[in-house]
């Protein structure tokens, strides 16, 4: 993924934005010490869902008997097949819908509806003609972690020698400040970051670290404050 970002001198460059994944310290092998992998498979399709079966047989007792007798909920040809190249589509009773009207129902934390409105699908703003703005709004790391939960992280990586210098300088500046810097997008440089069209908005904070002649520039993304909800639920299926 590319990101167009400006520095404190208002010079901008397009650099790479890479995902940060959690460290994997456990590997799984079979009894011959060979690595195993995970594949997605089909468990059930819509045609064999309870709702569809109920349409064919409205009497629950008869349906129950039919399930026992004919295994109507199972397609032995399809179920269990490996899945790849999946798409997400809207389907109405007329079939696949190519032109869809979407509405957002905004709900309060207690589940009550706050508003209903046509869905807004904002464009991504991290790689446009307008570079992300170096706001100069520094927040001490200690203060930032007290206020925000960083729910996602990315790493900025140079794509050539010039951008190495560009990013190394950024990392160094931030490290010296011992601070995170708020990063903003949009024409006025006042918008949260959106990675993909229609995607979540994030308040983004840039952290820089250096080690000798190397650097690590981390983009911390937050859509949540570190605070207690009004009415927390007790420990149930918490994990």
């Amino acid at each position: 993924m590319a990101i167009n970002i400006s520095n404190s001198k208002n010079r901008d460059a397009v650099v790479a934005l890479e995902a940060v994944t959690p460290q994997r310290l456990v590997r799984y092998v079979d009894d011959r010490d060979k690595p195993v992998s995970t594949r997605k498979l089909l468990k059930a399709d819509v045609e064999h869902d309870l709702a569809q079966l109920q349409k064919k047989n409205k009497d629950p007792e008869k349906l129950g008997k039919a399930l026992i007798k004919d295994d109507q909920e199972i397609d032995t040809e399809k179920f269990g097949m490996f899945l790849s190249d999946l798409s997400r589509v809207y389907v109405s009773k007329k079939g696949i819908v190519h032109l869809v009207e979407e509405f957002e129902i905004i709900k309060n934390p207690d589940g009550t509806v706050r508003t209903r409105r046509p869905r807004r699908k904002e464009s991504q703003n991290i790689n446009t003609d307008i570079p992300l703005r170096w706001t100069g709004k520094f927040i001490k790391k200690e203060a930032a972690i007290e206020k925000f939960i960083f729910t996602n992280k990315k790493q900025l990586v140079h794509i050539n020698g010039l951008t190495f210098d560009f990013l190394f300088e950024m990392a160094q500046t931030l490290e010296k400040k011992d601070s995170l810097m708020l990063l903003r997008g949009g024409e006025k440089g006042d918008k949260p970051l959106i990675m993909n069209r229609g995607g979540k908005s994030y308040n983004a904070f840039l952290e820089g670290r250096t080690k000798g002649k190397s650097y690590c520039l981390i983009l911390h993304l937050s859509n949540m404050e570190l605070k207690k909800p009004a009415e927390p639920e007790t420990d149930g299926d918490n994990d």
Partner: protein
Amino acid sequence: MARELRLSLDGEEFAVIINKVSREKLYGDVEVEAFDEKGNPADLLTLSADGKTFIDTGGTSLATVTAEGTSISRADLIATDIHGEKLDEVPSSFNHANTLKKATVEEYLSQVVKSVYVLEPAEGSDLKLLQSQFPKNIYKFDFSYRGGLEFDSAFVLGNKTDAFLIVGKQGEFEFVKLNQVSVLESTEEDISADDLDFDLL
């Protein structure tokens, strides 16, 4: 009844109840309704590669397969570390006292967050002493909710009013190298971030 997690700091033990914090609980949720051109409700489904099999939520599953593509039960898998050494199981953190060690801000910021919990005192427990450590200090310990093959990293931190448990795993960061180094002098002033909007981002 909620399970108690025991945290130990400098010989002092604190029994806490952990309650999950989510964005939905803080700010609410957004649901999407869709309609076709004639106003019929439309559902978002998964379409398989054959172009005719529609799959709803819960219609897929993950299976573990061998190099040959044969399905293998999880019970038959052998867990190893990155060097190929067989791993022993780790206990649930609810089964023993968890000793808190001091952590740095950088360690905390290196974590990829999985879950956030707010800490509440268990019956008969008092968190005042633990709470007094915040926001100055951050603590860490190895955490496993149910037990398993590896621990998550857990950080205990807080602000003036509440204490939190942040669970996750160390992120795979990389220090990137090249030959040239130059220094940039910055003149920006530090400002507050109190006015950031988090509601309905």
